[in-house]
């Protein structure tokens, strides 16, 4: 086991392990630190932060579904000021690696958030969550339309300059994810996060109305893993050099390995941490074991392995 190079990179950011939290599924890290040392994983991906404090959507905010769940949090959060002074400061103090996720209601909000983060010490990369509604365009999700997705990424790129890697987080709810992926890379993203939740709904049998306060919600968990694997595979096939932070239903090392073979350089764990606070540690250990047993000498060799011709050797 000692020989395996388990490290990964996303753009110019280096991480000792390829397992990360998923945005919105680890709050700001403090709560998980009760269960394991945050420095033991790749990085904390923070919940998507917006400019102002936000109360989020009405409850109920969750519904369990077969092998998955729906959530409708609505980006509740403290706003960038409090985030920087409290949450990020604490993470930096802990020496945890951090990827900050940002979200906005307008392309301008994204850019201004990037401006606030530019030069802040202790941030490894920026995840730009464009899978949220664009209030200037009838609430259409940025990531569902090539142009609005590109506008956001261009604005962030221009603001942030060349150093901090920009990872654009895409929604699977599109006809052609490859064209969106290509578009945001052209617009200046260094990498992609795939996939955000799938739009879903549960109707409550008692009230006979949509169960969630927000009516629709995002489907996550093992149920969506085949969709994540497909999206990652398609995008890696089209853009083999673009680093992908994969996510969607990973709850074991074997699941993480599947996303890596599809083309992910790193894997975020979301819903699995709800069911098991030490899921990240378990997944990380299992993945290390699998790579070793399969005879890989580095994680990097396994990335995108499923795309190689049948007879290729390791």
């Amino acid at each position: 086991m000692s020989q395996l190079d388990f490290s990964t990179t996303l753009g110019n950011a280096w991480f000792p392990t390829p397992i990360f939290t998923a945005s919105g599924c680890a709050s700001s890290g403090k709560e998980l630190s009760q269960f394991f040392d945050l420095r033991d994983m790749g990085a904390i991906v923070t919940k998507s932060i917006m400019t102002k404090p936000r109360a989020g959507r009405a409850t109920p905010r969750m519904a369990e579904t077969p092998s998955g769940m729906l959530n409708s949090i609505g980006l509740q959060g403290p706003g960038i000021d409090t985030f920087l002074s409290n949450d990020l400061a604490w993470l930096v103090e802990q020496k945890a690696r951090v990827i900050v996720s940002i979200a906005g209601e307008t392309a301008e909000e994204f850019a201004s958030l990037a401006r606030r983060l530019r030069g802040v010490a202790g941030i490894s990369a920026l995840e730009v969550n464009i899978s949220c509604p664009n209030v200037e365009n009838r609430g259409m999700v940025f990531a569902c339309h090539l142009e609005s997705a590109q506008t956001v990424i261009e604005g962030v790129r221009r603001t942030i300059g060349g150093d901090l890697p920009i990872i654009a987080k895409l929604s699977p709810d599109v006809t052609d994810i490859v064209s969106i992926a290509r578009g945001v890379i052209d617009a200046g993203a260094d990498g992609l996060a795939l996939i955000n939740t799938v739009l879903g709904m549960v109707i409550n049998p008692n009230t006979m109305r949509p169960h969630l306060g927000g009516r629709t919600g995002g489907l996550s968990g093992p149920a969506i893993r085949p969709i994540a694997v497909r999206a990652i595979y398609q995008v890696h096939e089209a853009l083999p050099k673009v680093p992908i932070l994969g996510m969607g239903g990973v709850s074991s090392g074997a699941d993480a390995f599947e996303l890596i073979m599809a083309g992910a350089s790193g894997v975020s764990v979301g819903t699995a941490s709800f069911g098991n606070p030490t899921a990240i540690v378990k997944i990380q250990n299992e993945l290390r074991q699998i790579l070793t047993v399969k005879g890989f000498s580095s994680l990097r060799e396994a990335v995108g392995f499923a795309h190689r011709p049948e007879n290729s050797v390791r």
Partner: protein
Amino acid sequence: MTGINRSAAQLLATIVGNKKVGQYHQILISVGELVSQCKPGNFVAISVGGPNSRMVLRRAFAISRTTTSPQYGGAIELIVAPFGSGSSWLCGLSEGEQIDITLPLGTAFGIPTTSVNALLVGGGYGSAPLFGLAEVLKERGCRVDMLLGASTGSKIYAPLEGKRSVNSLRIFTEDGSMGETGRITAPIAQLVSELQIDVIYSCGPMAMLKAISEILAGGDVVHQCAVEEAMACGIGICMTCVLPVKDESGKINNLRSCIDGPVMDGSAIEWDLVGKTLVL
């Protein structure tokens, strides 16, 4: 804000008892030394359905009481209603089977430092943590009166030994099948003044907690209620379990009931805003 569950741990624990009591299951789980960390009001989050389960989320259960025995060491007791698939699975487990649990989670009932007059109000299985609480209050020299209510008698949980630790116990059922007929909230206003109640500890359905808060509104009685919002994680990382709570400055925030609760100050919860969109 609590921030983190400082003494929480995750472990594979063994079921050491599972007994049917009325419509509930009294489930005893061996947890070793951790019992000393469990306080009335805390809850436990349990992984349900076994290795091939399609249920990806834990279920939360109030810790009813803790015991220690030479046979199985420290143990916690839960009172579980076999309601849906997760709780029914749990109620179907036998002695000796193992479950993955995280505990103790959340806030505990605040215990007064002086002897006060306390009224404990429990709806359905909500009575479970109140008996353990009653013992602690008794030890502090408090007067402890208790009201239990449910729709029907088989949903009243009132263990014999529990009655010893209270000064009085009245039971209300809506169908009159046990105790007095009617809602548990009916006698509260009168009792508060008759018994000179300083603090009410409540646990039960949200509608009951809300009703108690309304009865107490404007008065001096402290209301510590254990809320029950749907929780995806139970440890503060998902933001599904929020309730609108007013802080000292009067500002309302959505607080996580799993980590800033389940025991909360009933007078600070904005009951009319529960389930509404909050604008900051």
